Structures are given as C-alpha cells and as structure tokens.
C-alpha cells in the first residue's frame, strides 16, 4: 500500500488552475522530489496535502484512508508534518519552546509534559540545535531557522514529512548539511516529499521525482529519467 495517494487533485484560484488533475502516489519509505518552475503549483500541492487548502475536485488518501477535507491539526496528528517555503517559526519564543509546541500538540494521543519535553530535546539534538535551545528563535540564522522548523515538525512524530524548499537561500556548505539531514530523516524510516530548486540536492537524495508545470504533472521517474527527459528540459529551458 502507498502511504500517500492523490486522485485527480485540482485547485483553482479564481480562473487559474494552480493544481490541475494531478494523480500521484508516494510509497512507504520513499524520498520523492517535487520540482517545477516558479508558480508551477508545488506549494499549492503541499497545502492541499496538509489541508491548508481543500482540493476541488480530487481525493487525497493517507495510508489508504481518505483525508480530504480534514482540518490541518487532524492531518498533523495523523502523521503528516510539513515545513514552509518562507519559514514560519514562532520567532518570539525560545527555540526549545517552538519544538515543545510540536511534541505537545502534534502527537496523536497527546503526551505528558515530561514525555513532550524529552521528545522536544531529542528533536533538537537530532537537527543539531541543542546548544541554542534557550535562544529566542528570531536570533537564529536562516539555516538554523530552517533546521528548527524541521525539528518542530519531527517532534510531532510524523510518518510523512513535507519539506518545502529546505535548501533555498542556503550556502553550499549549508546545502550539504541539509542533504545529510534529509538522509538522516529517511534513515529513521520517515517518508519524505521535498520541493526543491537546488537540482544537486534533488538528484542526490531522491528516489523518484515528480515534475509539475502550470499545475499539471508533466513527468515522473527516477532522477536519471528526469534528467534526460526531453519534455522536462524543454520546460526548464523555455522559462
């Protein structure tokens, strides 16, 4: 069984089809890359999966269960966590409290404060931010803010993690570290879908890639296949 499936997923903004009739699946344990030019509808697809938006029409299934139309917090507690293209951390809270909020509210039956605190510390440790636990989140560098967002998502104990442009705005070293982090998450058995413009990262860590263009899925395959696909190259060069 696939962990995530979408059937004919569509979203209009006024007359604009931001996502149009997209069928997709994500297998358990996979790392799937989602690419496409600016405005292709990638973030919108994430918003649909994580229930910020509701597809119309279309159906989204998680572990075989129809989750279309559920509330975002429910989706999170079912095991789908996400990060945002522009970081949305709680800037005026300490780093640890950001993550604590994730473990407190994001896990399904809920946790005792002791468990939540332990989970939060572990998540921080996992992304390598333990030293900065007490700092206000706004004092972190962009790279660390992105790590914090990952830690907060991880603290909700997801089975599926959606990463929206984790590498955007980072320098070469930070990108390498980011790739390591993604692999580490995968090795924990968490399924990943990542939107990325940094091709090196996509090619390096993804098992499979889905390409969107003008809201439509135009290609899908292994990194090798995508890199040599004429259609994909045309779309990118045509921009």
């Amino acid at each position, binding site marked *: 069984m696939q962990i995530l499936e979408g059937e004919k997923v569509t979203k209009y903004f006024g007359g604009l089809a931001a996502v149009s009739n997209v069928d997709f699946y994500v297998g358990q344990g996979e790392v799937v890359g989602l690419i496409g030019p600016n405005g292709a509808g990638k973030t919108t697809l994430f918003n649909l999966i994580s229930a910020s938006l509701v597809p119309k029409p279309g159906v989204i299934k998680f572990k075989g269960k129809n989750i279309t139309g559920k509330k975002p*917090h429910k989706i999170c507690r079912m095991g789908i966590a996400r990060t945002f293209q522009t970081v949305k951390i709680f800037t*005026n809270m300490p780093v640890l409290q950001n993550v604590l909020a994730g473990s*407190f509210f994001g896990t399904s039956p809920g946790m005792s404060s002791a468990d939540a605190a332990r989970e939060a510390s572990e998540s921080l440790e996992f992304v390598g931010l333990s030293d900065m636990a007490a700092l206000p989140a706004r004092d972190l560098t962009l790279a660390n803010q992105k790590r914090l967002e990952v830690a907060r998502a991880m603290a909700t104990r997801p089975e599926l993690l959606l990463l929206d442009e984790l590498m955007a705005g980072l320098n070469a070293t930070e990108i390498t570290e980011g790739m390591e982090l993604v692999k580490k998450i995968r090795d924990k058995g968490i399924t990943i879908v990542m939107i990325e413009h940094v091709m090196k990262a996509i090619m390096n860590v993804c098992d499979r890639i889905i390409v969107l263009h003008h809201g439509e899925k135009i290609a899908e395959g292994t990194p090798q296949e995508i890199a040599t696909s004429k259609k994909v190259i045309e779309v990118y060069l045509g921009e």
Partner: protein
Amino acid sequence: MNITRFTSKGFLIPGLISLVILIALVTLPFYGSLYNVIMVTSILMYIILTVSWVLFSGPTGYMSLATAAFFGIGIYASAIFLPNTGAILPLLVVVVIGGLVSSLVALGVGALTLRLRGIYFAIFTFGLVVLILELGNWWEHTVTHTRGRFVMLVDNDVIFYIMLAIFVLLMLTTYLIRRSKFGLAMRSIGENEEAAAHIGVNVTMVKVITFAISAFFMGAAGVIWATKLTYVDPYVAFNPLFSFMPVLMAIFGGMGQIYGPVIGAVIFAYLQEKLQTEFPYYYMLIFGFVLVAAILYLPDGLIGLIQKLWRLIRRWRKGGAAKQDANT
C-alpha cells in the same frame, strides 16, 4: 526542562507581593473610607475587563472590541434578575448566570467570526456591541415599553467583595493558563496561526474557548457593576467606551507581563475617576489627550518604559564604573 515547574526564586517574591496586596484588599473595608471602597471597586472592575481582554487578545493577537457586549450582557442579566422590586434569584447565582450567558454568546460569535483576520475581526466585534445596543433599545421601546430599569440596592461592601472575588479568580485563571499547555497553544497561534495549525494545535477550538473564558469574567463583572449603577438602560449597559478602555489600559500598562495590564488599569481607572469628579467639564478633553499621548509616547506601555529606563540606568552605571577603572 519543564515549563510547568517554576523555580522557587522566581515565584517567591511575586507570590509574596501578591499576598500582601491581597491582604490589603480583603481588609480594605475595615480601614478604608466608603469612598475608598467604592473607588477600589471601580478600579477592580476596570482591571477585570482589561485582564480578561488581554487573556484572549494578548497572546492570540485578535483585537476584540466586544468587551462592552459581554459586560453589557452581565449588566442586563442583573437588571432582569435583580430588579429593585425584589431579587428573583440570589445575587451570586446571577453573577454566574451573567458570566455563563456572556460565554455562550462568545462561543457562538467566536465560532462564526474567529476566521476573520485583523481589522475585520475588530470591526465585527465592535459591530456586535452596536447591534445589541440598538436591538436592546428597540426591544425596550416597542416590545416592553420600558425606558430603563432599576436594579436593587446592594451593600457597597458586598459589591466590593464580589468584585474582588471575581478579580482573584481571574488572576488565578490567567496565571494557570499562561503556564499551561493551553497557554502555549494560544501563544503559538499569536505567533503564527498557520504554523500552529500544522503542528497539531486545534486553532479554532483554542481561540473560541479562550474567547468564552474571557467573556465569562466580563459578564460576571457586569452583573455586580449593575448593582452599583442601580439605573440601567441599553446606552448605559452597552457603552462602546467599555470596548475601547480595556485595550487602551492594556497598551498603557504594557502587555508583555501579567502585571502590565493590571498597573495600566489601576492608573487609568484612577485617572478617569479623578478627572470625572474634579474636572467634569474638561474631563473628555484631558482624557482624550492622555489617550493620544499614551499611544504616541508609550508604545510598549509603562512597563516597557520602566524597563527601558532601568536598562539606561544600568548602562550608565556600568559606563561610569568602566570610566573609573580606566582612571585608576
């Protein structure tokens, strides 16, 4: 680390100060004049409105202007169940009823409107006050043919103690919520609502429940305030001023700390009472100027100003010490 446990040092001093203030308040009727008791009662009323306003609007960032509606519902509950012809229900029961009815209205309104962002929410909640005011007026004019109602007389000490009890209950509630998981949920909503939802915070429920809790205290305070007013009509009960005052008092005091709004309310309420009695003709003018000046020059409130001064003094002293070091 555990956020629900507080260190003894950080707890002892504020705890002691609170205790001293509480004892001073509880014994006030024994040493204070009647005038003092009445004055402190109205200051407590303003504190209750301000702190319960901050309870919801502070962490979530939704500027509610519905305070006058909830307060007014309490006032009207008083007018209906405690008429001067004889109480229909016991006073304390009415206090609870006023609070509960306000909460219920808040639940309904909150469920409908808390998806409105920013200024729309402020406008809507303010509209609610005027709508209830006008409907109340119409009802009194054309249905019951009454022009105002009289509320039964209650002993000033009793009014004072009930107001004090509501105040203490509110402070405890605020304190506990701030330290709880629920408080963390509220703060994350205020920081970033979308992110909060995606890490599992039931955003709508948290907002609506907090809105209802804050409305409870406003309504309860309205019930007991009405017995002080004795005469009630829709203009008195749903005076839009009570929607704006809590906001101004909270800003005046500073919202960062739990005691900021309290201090703001104390000073503001005192100022208002004094101005109203000593300069009845210039009251509006002076009060307006103070409002504008407070917003212009105290953006972080009095507490913010004090903190800033404190930092300045420390830096100045450090600077002085450094200079002395250099001289020796």
